[in-house]
């Protein structure tokens, strides 16, 4: 982080500030979604924006995720920079055609003639007792799609800088916000800054093991690293920040140094983001590995409502800690 005047903002405030700054900066930016205006979304992330920018920039829509996302694709192709708000990441199911068959492919299919500079903001993350249709982390799907970029910020600082870059990007970008982090506080500079898409961040340097973690799992990994330190294990926590593009080199270099790796992500483990990252590391750092690359994703079950069940479905600082200890031969 640059040395400059900083304050503490919540994750939600950082996102709101990024949006406000870009709305001010570029008249082509508009926000579309359900209850985004006066209500400021159910999570209150957009509170206050409609007061400053009015209902021509912060636009309430019907409950028509496919419709308004499709509309945003067309608007982006014709000179605007729409930001679409999909309340729960679970509703990505409804916009896959617009995002995958339309937004992601139009630039390529037109041989470069058309561009779709839009952002789809949505949420992810479980343990909110919201049950199976309001708790999914479906970023693996969009990460699989050439033509889309996918961002998973883990701190208020990253959220602001990455969202500003996403809005200025010429491509469709899917931006995932973990609902459980909205109140997380962290330092954010007063001065303007952006963070380029595709650059991983070493959140904590270490020498014995690399923990690659995404989104709120970075916070969990940091807590696990603290615990590990207490037992004499120095963990390096690396946050890819974007799954597409993926900063392969930073990940692989870290593991070449530490020789052990755990990949932690809140999507389902099977065919999820941990698979790609583990495969990339196992390949790229093959000759440096002292142990197999291990993965911790969400359990492969629909997210249960009942708290004692839900709690065991996501990786925790303890599961990371235990696995790291075992990998380092100090269990």
């Amino acid at each position, binding site marked *: 982080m640059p040395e400059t005047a900083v304050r503490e903002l919540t994750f939600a405030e950082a996102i709101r500030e990024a949006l406000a700054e870009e709305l001010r900066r570029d008249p082509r930016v508009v926000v579309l979604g359900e209850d985004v205006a006066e*209500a400021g979304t159910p999570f209150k992330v957009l509170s206050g924006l409609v007061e400053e920018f009015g209902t021509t920039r912060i636009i309430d829509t*019907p409950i028509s995720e496919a419709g308004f996302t499709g509309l945003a694709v067309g608007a982006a192709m014709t000179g605007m920079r729409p930001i679409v708000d999909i309340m729960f990441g679970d509703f990505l199911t409804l916009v896959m055609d617009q995002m995958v068959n339309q937004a992601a492919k139009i630039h390529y299919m037109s041989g470069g003639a058309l561009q779709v500079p839009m952002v789809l903001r949505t949420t992810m993350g479980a343990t909110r007792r919201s049950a199976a249709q309001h708790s999914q982390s479906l970023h693996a799907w969009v990460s699989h799609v050439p033509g889309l970029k996918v961002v998973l910020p883990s701190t208020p600082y990253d959220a602001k800088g990455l969202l500003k870059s996403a809005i200025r990007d010429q491509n469709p970008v899917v931006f995932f916000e973990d609902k459980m982090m909205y109140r997380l506080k962290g330092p954010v500079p007063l001065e303007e800054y952006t963070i380029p898409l595709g650059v991983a961040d070493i959140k904590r340097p270490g020498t014995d093991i690399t923990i690659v973690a995404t989104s709120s799992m970075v916070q969990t990994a940091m807590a696990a690293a603290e615990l590990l330190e207490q037992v004499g294990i120095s963990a390096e926590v690396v946050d890819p920040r974007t799954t597409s593009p993926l900063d392969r080199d930073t990940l692989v270099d870290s593991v070449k140094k530490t020789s052990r790796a755990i990949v932690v992500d809140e999507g389902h483990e099977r065919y999820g983001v941990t698979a790609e990252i583990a495969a990339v590391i196992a390949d790229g750092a093959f000759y440096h590995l002292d142990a197999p690359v291990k993965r911790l994703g969400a359990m492969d079950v629909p997210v249960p409502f009942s708290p004692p069940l839900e709690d065991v479905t996501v990786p925790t600082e303890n599961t990371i800690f235990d696995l790291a200890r075992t990998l380092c031969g100090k269990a």
Partner: protein
Amino acid sequence: MTIHTQATRAESGIDAARGLQMYSQMARIRVFEERVNELYTRAIMPGLAHLYIGQEAVAVGVCAQLEPDDYITSTHRGHGHCLAKGAQPDRMFAELLGKEAGYCRGRGGSMHIADPATGNLGANAIVAGSAGVATGAAFSAKWRGSGQVAVCFFGEGALGQGVLYEVMNLAQLWLLPVVYVCENNLYNEYTHYRETTAGEVLARPAAFGMHAEQVDGQDVRAVFAAAGRLVTRARSGGGPAFLQCDTYRYRGHHVGDINRVFYRSKEEEQEWMTTRDPLARFGDWLCRLGFADPADLEACFVTARHEIETAAQFALDSPFPDASDVQRHVYA
């Protein structure tokens, strides 16, 4: 396409016994939801809940026309439909609290209560998410020649979802025995439906040549009468229908939605609650016709309160599922 707003006594076919039964059912729902609200406010209930208070006449009026093996599908605001179709409050509370004794063994919670034994194919947390399920249940009933009817309950917000139009087209093409019940409580969360809905609601089903009616959803007799016509019609091969019920939710979109003035006025809430309350209106009618006196009505509430309290206590005392069991039921 006909529009009915008032049912005569003869039409409604409600006698004293049936009337009191429907009144107690409405009272039960209201008391259940009050208790849910309290459990939530006291931080005993995990997650969220969307209360049905104010809309009781719709679920009760429609479900009173259904056979036990007829199907319903429901929404995020589903407790009223479940109870009206025959679910027991004890297992519902247990579900809401995430307990093993719940209808879904705690896996579903408030937005996913399903109870095949009473024909309830499940609440759904995806707006319009059960439109396909209900239409498919009707397809299956017709295909199997079972004589069952399916009722798809949804809020007017679901009119925003394209899949509703896809399945209404299928239902009309294939004359499936399904009744789409649109509960228009004026709001999609925090936005008035006029800001999200172009044209008139009934023109939407009519676009597919579907029979469509509108009733005062605060008048349980009108709902009962209309539902009777449409269910009978569907059961006898007349095809699908659409029933718009104009109603109002008294409370927030969900239990946590306390400050509502930014999207609707206190006066509006007051107006609906005082002049159009479905329990008050139906109670008046029952008394006017000599089917009940105020003491009978009060007795319904007393019974309901007792039942609900016992049910809540059962649920509170029930154990949580065993965490080691978390991977069961992913596959059948």
